[in-house]
């Protein structure tokens, strides 16, 4: 909302500079978005009167004017505009003047004739967005007057933001009321004076309220024989300072009173109302109205309308109807001022997506006791500016009295809540300055009646906030509380997740962070199974691409790979939730997952490294390290997963429960996505992993006795999984076989085609003694026999 400081000062005399005022408004909770000083740079521009216009002898498009600026001889000014005539008053910049933006005007020759200044357009003075020709001023403007003064440019415009609880601030009087209370200066309301006719309003019109819950109060006046014209300069300028466009005097007055009081008014053309009367009622289902914006709107029975005897004439509190609009032919006006239920206004406005200025005021709660005052204020202005006869009396239907609330304040409570001892008298006077009245009081407490404009106050805490605001949040001390816990624990995975994050970062991985949205079409394209397509859908997504919540992090990783496809090497991961609908619950499950992707060359491109590409085992090793760090036992199995290369993918399980998957991207999909074919991806379910009770780490004795190693190289069937060898040797060695290393696997020319050579290193050690060769030989013999028997192994 734009607030002109000059206008604000009409209601209260603020004893501070605009900078101090802005600071203080901020500290009272009135947020200042920006401060504009429209005339800041304008200098030496005056009201000038054109005395003469002659064609420039050397230029078709220019004229030579004589302009009187009230000082000395009239100035000779060359001008390119066409919209002025002799006698017009225009803004005239003299030699040495400055325009907005710091643009300097100096005397100069134009096509041989000297020009001693410049006559300005509205755009040049930044009072209009764009202009055709000069700004023609009102004929009453005194010649020689500073243009800043006559155009109201010697003003400060605050752009303020008002929180939803303080609808009462969204008006000049509301703001002035707050500031006059703070600065302890009187609030000056305009005098309302007009003459009423003998004829009564009830003789020509009437108001009926059929829905008092929606409209507790409705008042109106009738003004006959008004003269519709444009508004006078002062009114037009005030509306423009608020960013509004003047329309005609009647409409402008209702808009002006809205700005002044915060109370939306509406003027109907009385003669266009059937039977000249007003019925406030709920619409019938399917009833229609064409609103002022030209839209034909279909109504339902929850929506309040202002109707005449037959049909809707306004969407109550939101927008008038086109059929009863005040136009240049209007003679008799019905002026409405009402109080509408905020919730009903909000619902209807949202339904029609029509959050008008009026709707915004009503949905925050208008001032019930301001209804007639605002009506009379507008009436007086209409009589003053549009003439007309005001019929006697107000049609004031008030079927549902709303009582003012009473709220108790315990003085001690203020200290208990704020932590600072605020003087009793300060507490009490703050509230009374703000318009609260004392209903009852004793030493410890006071009962306040809440003013009609303060819909936000209903609890003691609300009063404490008022006192704290006026005391100053900055004067409340800063203390460090003693922090206690009840003993309840609310999260057990935050730290564990962070440990995995750190582990991967230490391994050289870079962490990604994606939006958790997904697109089912892309999931299908990536060949994800039906399980993954059971997704949480958004009702109002930003786009098709962001229409569901993800069920896997893998598509995010692939997008990252696509975006960074020019990198030689990529090793990234992301940790976050996925969303799995749960038919048994309202809310989906949100397990945390980790996705890891490696792609391209295994080492940075550096003088000391070869250009080896990443392979499956680079990623498998990372997964093993994570699971080992968490002390989790697991098994691996081959996996069929259409996104992955069928020969290079696996599932990781614990007690037959799938913990995650690892695989090479299928060449087809890598080709389609235009990413490196050597891309390996894994996804682990951290929720499942964290649930597994890991082995506790306990100290193991470090043997004082030397260990001995033996190597063994065997030929086995090429298709034999090496893990089978390890499983078969698991229980062998009578406690002295400490470690088996797989130090070579070879297929190729040196061995038969259907065989592979596997080289194993065995480490033997005892905690009690130095082992003898014969002991070790005995175990090696057992090992060899077992391998021969089980796998038909040949010793090399």
């Amino acid at each position, binding site marked *: 909302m734009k607030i002109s400081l000059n206008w604000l000062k009409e209601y209260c005399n603020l004893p501070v500079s605009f900078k101090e005022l802005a600071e203080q408004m901020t*500290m009272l*909770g009135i*947020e*200042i978005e920006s401060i504009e000083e429209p005339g800041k740079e304008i200098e030496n521009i005056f009201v000038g009167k054109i005395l003469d216009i002659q064609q420039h002898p050397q230029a078709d498009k220019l004229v030579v004017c004589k302009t009187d600026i009230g000082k000395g001889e009239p100035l000779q000014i060359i001008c390119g505009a066409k919209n002025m005539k002799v006698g017009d008053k225009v803004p005239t910049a003299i030699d040495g003047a400055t325009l907005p933006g710091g643009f300097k005007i100096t005397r100069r020759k134009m096509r041989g004739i000297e020009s001693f200044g410049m006559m300005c357009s509205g755009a040049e003075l930044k009072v209009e967005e764009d202009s055709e020709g000069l700004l023609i001023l009102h004929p009453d403007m005194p010649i020689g007057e500073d243009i800043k003064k006559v155009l109201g440019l010697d003003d400060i415009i605050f752009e303020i933001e008002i*929180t*939803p609880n*303080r609808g009462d601030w969204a008006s000049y009087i509301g703001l002035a009321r707050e500031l006059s209370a703070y600065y302890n200066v009187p609030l000056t309301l305009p005098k309302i004076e007009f003459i009423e006719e003998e004829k009564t309003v009830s003789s020509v019109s009437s108001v009926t309220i059929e829905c008092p819950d929606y409209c507790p109060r409705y008042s109106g006046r009738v003004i006959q024989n008004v003269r519709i014209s444009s508004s006078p300069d002062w009114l037009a300028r005030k509306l423009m300072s608020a960013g509004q466009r003047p329309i005609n005097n009647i409409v402008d007055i209702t808009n002006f009173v809205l700005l002044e009081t915060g109370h939306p008014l509406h003027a109907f053309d009385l003669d266009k109302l059937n039977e000249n009367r007003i019925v406030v009622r709920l619409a019938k289902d399917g009833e229609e109205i064409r609103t002022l914006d030209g839209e034909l709107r279909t109504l339902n029975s929850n929506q309040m309308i202002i109707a005449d005897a037959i049909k809707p004439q306004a969407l109550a509190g939101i927008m008038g109807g086109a059929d009863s609009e005040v136009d240049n032919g209007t003679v008799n006006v019905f002026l409405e001022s009402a109080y509408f239920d*905020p919730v009903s206004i*909000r619902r209807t406005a949202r339904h029609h997506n029509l959050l008008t200025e009026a709707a915004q005021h009503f949905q925050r709660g208008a001032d019930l006791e301001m209804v007639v005052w605002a009506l009379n204020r507008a009436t007086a202005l209409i009589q003053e500016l549009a003439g007309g006869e005001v019929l006697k009396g107000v049609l004031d239907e008030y079927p549902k009295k709303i009582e003012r609330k009473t709220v108790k304040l315990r003085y001690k409570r203020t200290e*208990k*809540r704020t*932590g600072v001892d605020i003087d009793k008298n300060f507490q009490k006077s703050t509230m009374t300055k703000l318009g609260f009245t004392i209903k009852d009081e004793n030493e410890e407490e006071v009962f306040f009646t809440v003013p009609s404009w303060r819909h936000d106050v209903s*609890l003691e*805490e609300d009063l*404490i*906030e008022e006192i704290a605001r006026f005391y100053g*949040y*900055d004067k409340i*001390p*800063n*203390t460090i*509380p003693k*922090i*206690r816990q*009840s003993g*309840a*624990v*609310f*999260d057990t995975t935050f730290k564990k997740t962070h440990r995995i994050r750190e582990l991967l*970062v230490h*391994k*050289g*991985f*870079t*962490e*990604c*962070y994606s*939006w*958790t*949205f997904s697109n089912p079409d892309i999931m299908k394209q990536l060949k994800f199974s039906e399980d993954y397509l059971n997704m*949480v*859908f958004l*009702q*109002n*997504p930003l786009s098709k691409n962001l229409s569901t919540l993800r069920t896997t992090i893998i598509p*995010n990783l692939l997008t990252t790979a696509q*975006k*960074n496809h020019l*990198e030689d090497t990529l*090793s*990234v991961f992301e940790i976050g*939730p996925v*969303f799995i609908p749960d038919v048994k619950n*309202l*809310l989906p499950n*949100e397990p945390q997952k980790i996705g890891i992707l490696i792609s391209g060359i295994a*080492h*940075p491109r*550096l003088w*000391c490294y070869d250009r080896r590409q990443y392979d499956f085992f680079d990623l498998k090793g990372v997964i093993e390290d994570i699971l080992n760090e968490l002390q989790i036992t697991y098994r691996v199995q081959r996996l069929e997963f259409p996104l992955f290369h069928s020969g290079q993918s696996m599932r990781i399980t614990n007690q037959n429960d799938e913990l995650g998957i690892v695989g090479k991207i299928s060449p087809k999909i890598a080709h389609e996505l235009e990413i490196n074919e050597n891309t390996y991806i894994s996804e682990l379910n951290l929720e499942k992993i964290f649930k597994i009770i890991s082995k506790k780490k306990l100290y193991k004795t470090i043997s004082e006795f030397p260990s001995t190693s033996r190597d063994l190289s065997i030929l086995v069937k090429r298709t034999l999984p090496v893990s089978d060898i390890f499983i078969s040797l698991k229980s062998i060695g009578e406690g002295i076989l400490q470690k088996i290393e797989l130090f070579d696997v070879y297929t190729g020319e040196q061995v038969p085609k259907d065989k592979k050579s596997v080289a194993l290193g065995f480490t033997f050690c005892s905690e009690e003694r130095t082992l003898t060769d014969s002991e070790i030989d005995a175990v090696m013999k057992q090992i060899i026999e077992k391998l021969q028997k089980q796998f038909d192994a040949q010793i090399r």
Partner: protein
Amino acid sequence: MIEELEQIKESALQKIKESDSTDFLEQIRVEFLGKKGKITEVLKKLGSLSPEERPKIGNIANEIKNIITNNIQQQYQVVLEKEFQKKIEQEQIDITLPGRTYGNGHMHVINQVMNEITSIFIQMGFQVASGPEVETEYYNFESLNTPEDHPARDVHDTFYIKPGVVLRTHTSPVQMRVMEKTKPPVAVIVPGRVYRVDNDASHSPMFNQMEGLLVDEDITFADLKGTLMYFVHNFFGKDTAVRFRPHYFPFTEPSAEMDISCTVCKGKGCRVCKQSGWLEILGCGMVHPKVFQYAGYDNEKYQGYAFGFGIDRMAMLKFAIPSINLLFENNIKFLEQF
């Protein structure tokens, strides 16, 4: 025989003198002093001498043996030293070549900041809590004193999932979930993703917030100010100014917004702070009695504060990141900067 020994001695010393490797010295030792060495050969002939001559020649032979041994030892030290020198000369490298490294990894800047912030609050005695991102309207709005027709819902452009279910628009619903699980005292912080229907240069439909909630018998507004001041001074530095302005949130009363002095211009006024010198970073206040009512807490006995702020914004301020969208684009050239 003496002559023979003297000749052996001369020849040995000459060879020792000329030797230039430890291996060669070892050969010399074997040639002269070994079991089959020249001296041993001479000594074997001692038997053919007269008993008077034997000790005399024997002594001379031993003397020569000692001289050769000493010489070998001395020369050994000299040669060894030379060999070391040579080794060092041969093993010169260009120490300016870059080291063998895989490079460091990079934690996402949001998580770096989230971790730093949680550590500060954990030190003070808070614990981390979490809650679902797909949330009921009850927890996201209603129980936080924001009923369906409340104008405050306008500022939360909400993603809807189905009737009564939304993507949480803030981390505040976790306040209620925590309070339902325990009686006071409660001291939690809640980092997490939140969602709003908004996507432009300065808004992302998904972003991150940190919620704080402290409830006990005597927690005051002054405590709220002190806690947040402590946090700001730890996170942004001691020279950061802090101010609290009255504001409005449905779930706190009194409510405030906290500003810090602009991290770019230090409060002088610049483009980032729109010339005000201040940056708005956080909303807070004393927990609203209606919220306690929903939680089943006695408003007469207990009181507390709550606050919430954007983690992404903190990261952007701390690292001078110009646009929130950079945070979620996963451009490696961005991620590797932090």
